[in-house]
């Protein structure tokens, strides 16, 4: 187990800059999730940690020691690949023990290690099979077994669940979390799935086009996003971002133009930065769960404001009901109780939880604090 430090990391392929000065530090035993849209450089970052790609500038330290220039096998890491990358010509047991075989570890030790790992992952009955005879979920387990058996300082996972079907993905997610809790090894985990990121991570790094947008705990990333990209990327359904005019009429007020319906007028929450935007338009960010039916609203805060909104579509989803409210040119998704009485095509009161509201400068896309 060891901490991992990524220090001003740059990576270019010729003239294309893929990573532009990444700074991340994860403590010993932490679970770091790299998240971001496809092509933002997540795999590249992971591969530089593994030593599979050279770095152009900066440094990577595992347990305080620089690993720059070290061969992948010498970095004391293990990696699980998106395609699982099981050696097709070897049995499951051979796959798991290949690394030990290369390191010339004797057979009894190897077999004991295979047995231990097979036990943890419950794959004893698969040991003699070839990868082609396994299901997707079983391959995933074997790939994890091959990583586990190395007992490394840091585990690297590159979208390990993205090839599984939805149900299995949820099961394996829990399993990975359980493994982490049990072993406490530092993990770096790449995904483009923000739910995976929020459920697994102790720290999340949000990347976009090779730049680190925000680095923080899942709670910070979710509730305190630094810019509009992070706000929209994390959370499902994603955060509602609505234009509103800041006015000063007996205290700061926010006015959301309603178009053919009445304007929505909300008192501004405590946010010093907003004062500078009087007379201007800002982006109001409210998550769907902060926009709900008045009865279902969280009464523990006194920042609940009710406003009449035109309901366009209602989508029951079992545990919740989602409603699409039309506010001027914008569509806002509200998350209501499953049994909330709501009819599409009517003006209905919705409760805005303003203690959860955040604001962004529409020009810079940065948070207004």
């Amino acid at each position, binding site marked *: 187990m060891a901490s991992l430090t990524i220090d001003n990391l740059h990576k270019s392929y010729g003239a294309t800059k893929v990573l532009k000065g990444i700074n991340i530090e994860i403590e010993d035993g932490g679970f770091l999730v790299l998240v971001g849209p496809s092509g933002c450089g997540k795999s590249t970052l992971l591969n530089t940690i*593994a030593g*599979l790609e050279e770095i152009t500038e900066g440094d990577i330290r595992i347990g305080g020691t620089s690993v720059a220039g070290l061969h992948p096998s010498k970095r004391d890491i293990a990696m699980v*690949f998106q*395609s699982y*990358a099981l*050696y*097709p*010509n070897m049995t499951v047991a051979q796959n798991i023990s*290949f690394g030990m075989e290369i390191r010339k570890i004797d057979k009894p030790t190897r077999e004991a290690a295979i047995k231990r790992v097979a036990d943890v992952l419950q794959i004893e009955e698969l040991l003699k099979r070839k990868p082609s005879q396994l299901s997707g979920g079983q391959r995933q387990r074997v790939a994890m077994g*091959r990583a586990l058996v190395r007992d490394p300082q840091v585990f690297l996972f590159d979208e390990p669940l993205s090839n599984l079907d939805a149900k299995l993905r949820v099961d394996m997610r829990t399993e990975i979390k359980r493994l982490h809790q049990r072993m406490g090894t530092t993990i770096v985990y790449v995904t483009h799935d923000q739910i995976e990121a929020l459920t697994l991570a102790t720290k999340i790094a949000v990347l976009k086009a090779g730049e680190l947008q925000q680095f923080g705990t899942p709670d910070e990333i979710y509730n305190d996003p630094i810019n509009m990209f992070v706000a929209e990327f994390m959370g499902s359904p994603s955060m509602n971002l609505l234009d509103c005019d800041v006015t000063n009429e007996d205290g700061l007020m926010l006015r959301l133009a309603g178009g053919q319906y009445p304007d929505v007028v909300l008192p501004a929450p405590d946010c010093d930065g907003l004062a500078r935007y009087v007379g201007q338009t800002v982006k109001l960010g409210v998550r769907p769960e902060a926009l709900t039916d008045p009865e279902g609203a969280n009464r523990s805060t006194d920042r609940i404001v009710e406003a009449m909104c035109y309901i366009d579509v209602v989508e029951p989803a079992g545990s919740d009901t989602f409603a699409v409210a039309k506010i001027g040119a914008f569509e806002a998704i509200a998350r209501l109780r499953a049994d909330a009485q709501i009819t599409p095509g009517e003006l209905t009161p919705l409760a805005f939880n303003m203690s959860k509201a955040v604001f962004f400068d529409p020009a810079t896309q940065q948070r207004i604090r």
Partner: protein
Amino acid sequence: MSHSENAAPSNKLVRALIYTVLIFFVIYYLLPLYVMLVNSVKTLEDIRTGNLMALPKLLTFQPWRDAWSNAQIGVEATGLKPYFANSLMIVVPAVALSTITGALNGYVLTKYRFPGADIVFGMLLLSCFIPFQIVLIPAARILGLIGWSGTIQGLILIHFVYGIGFSTLFFRNYYAAFPTELIRAAQIDGASFFQIFRRILLPSSGPIIVVTVIWQFTNQWNDFLFGASFSGYTSTPITVALNNLVNSSTGVKEYNVHFAGAVLAALPTLIVYIVSGRYFVRGLMAGAVKG
């Protein structure tokens, strides 16, 4: 429903047509083989008086024995036997060398890419299209310089070098579709360049090895030009010997022996195709579909 009813008869018609065409071509290609086989087991008398297509009146294997060990080739009556051995001694190492080199080239060109890899590959590809005749004189000069003129190893070298272009092409395209993540996994497991090649890549290369071996073997075994140009008295390959047998100007033309000799000379390539033809097609398909 009605669609499939309509489709069925026209489908049958198309099939009948396809099979007719196919059978025609099968006959077209098998006829020469039939003529060769039939006439190689006839007596000379039979051939002279009868018809080329007719079955033998009297079955005899003497022409085969003669072609193999008695026939007059050049100045000595050795039969094709020593030349067959020459061909084997030339072709087997040359095929092995060019296949292994092609595999290594393909491995480096796809998985250990270096600046200019595509240019190197392009130049190797170009070698596939250079007509043999162009290289004859430079090749003769090089063989002379290293003192391998007219030797078995000289011919091995020529065939080996000439084979690299095609074998590299085959392996490069096959390995391009081979998942790079497997190589990376093996690197993390600590495997070296050659360990990855031997333990990960080669075991998955069966189909393309078969394709390359068949291709190289057929071309090199059937080669006449290099054999005629660079072989000496002790290194003449079977194709050249067969030519000498058929063209010898002394005595009567023993057509039955010539036919038997020709079949003997063609036998190894035939066997290679029959034994591994299935894999050949499968290998070509695998590359095509995945690539």
